[in-house]
């Protein structure tokens, strides 16, 4: 009686033994690399209704972030400025510019400009700007060099792992309390020790427990 399985089938277990780990590792790599928010979220830069440039306003002209995002020190939400804030200047400069047509229209009609949201945490996660700003975490740490962006983009993944990386060891990310909005302050260049800063009344204590961020 001829053999049911031809001789080459003897190699199948070896082939599986060799290939399965490779395929498995490949799959893990694919999920780790392409399913991570570092891939899906970072670099998202929606086109905005008005070609407003942070590089021009915050970078070249050096307007402080809080001129426009004025609630960031006091509230959870960093307010996107109303049209009035733009008109403080644009009633005076570039009054004829076509790129500002929507701003002028919005000012006249009272209809807000519909800016497209860039950063958005899932609704089950709680984030609050004010304790971070009060603790001396710079805007640039979480939003990147906004002063160099023509169009705002996501610079950090905003994933849970990313939040926790900092919450476990916040010290290297802290800066003097008056440098929070300074985009040029580079933590790797300056020797700053938050423990010896007399302006700090208390040491920071970021939550690691689940209910800190999922409330």
């Amino acid at each position, binding site marked *: 009686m001829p053999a049911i399985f031809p001789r080459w089938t003897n190699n199948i277990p070896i082939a599986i033994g060799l290939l399965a780990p490779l395929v498995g590792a490949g799959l893990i790599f694919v999920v780790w*690399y*392409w*399913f*991570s*928010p*570092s*891939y*899906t*979220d*970072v*670099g*998202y*830069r*929606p*086109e905005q209704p008005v070609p407003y440039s942070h590089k021009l306003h915050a970078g*070249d*002209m*050096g*307007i*402080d972030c*809080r*001129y426009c995002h*004025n609630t960031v020190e006091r*509230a*959870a*939400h960093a*307010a*996107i400025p109303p049209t*009035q*804030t733009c*008109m*403080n*200047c644009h*009633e*005076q*400069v*570039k*009054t004829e510019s076509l790129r500002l047509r929507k701003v002028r229209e919005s000012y006249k009609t009272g209809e*807000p400009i*519909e800016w497209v949201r860039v950063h958005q945490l*899932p*609704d*089950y996660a709680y984030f609050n700007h004010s304790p971070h700003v009060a603790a001396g975490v710079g805007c640039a740490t979480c939003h990147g060099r906004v002063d160099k962006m023509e169009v705002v*983009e996501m610079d950090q993944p905003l994933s849970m792992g990313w939040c926790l990386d900092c919450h476990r060891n916040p010290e290297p990310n802290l800066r003097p309390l*008056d440098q929070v909005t300074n985009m040029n302050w580079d933590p790797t260049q300056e020797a700053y020790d938050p423990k010896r800063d007399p302006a700090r009344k208390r040491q920071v204590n970021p939550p690691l427990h689940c209910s800190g961020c999922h409330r």
Partner: protein
Amino acid sequence: MARVRTTWAAMAALLTVMGCRGNRSNEPPVHLQQNMDFQERGEAQERNDFFADGRVMRPPVPGTIAVGYLKEDDHLWRGRLPNGALADELPAGIELSAALLDRGQERYNIYCQPCHGETGHGNGPATRRGGGFAVAPANFHQQKFLPVTLGYFFDVASNGKGSMKGYKAQIPVEDRWAIAAWVRTLQVTGEASVDELPEQAQNQRPRRIQ
């Protein structure tokens, strides 16, 4: 064999199309598992078609006042004395101190410096570009601003004047007083010699400048 090669080619092509981390894109992020990412609740500054004006953040009903915001203190909220004149002193509860001036300087540099400049000469960075301002921001060292009261700066910072808009929506009231004190400080340290200032201002000179 050809099929194996096609498979490899297809995989390589797929990986290339998928790209690397940090690629820029104006497509919204794809999240396969949405779970409870978007819940039925309003968030700050969101749109909501339930309301006629589309705003989630509801403005107060006309004629109502939030607790603590009756603003009955004319001096604090409007910079006015009981007789209606602009006050030249800080309101009760706000003390002239190094901390107040530091705060004033910081807030001035955020909200006023873009137009009026760090020293108050009216030549801030925003006025030097794009053809300049149609009406130039005021130079606080001009003769006509030296005798004005502290309350005047507070009033302009709050309600604006001429082609300048007010900042009472952006800046809390205490900070507007701190800014007013800092503008006065700039005048004292600026071109004006101390003797030219009104008596009031001389008395209010911050200690560290004397």
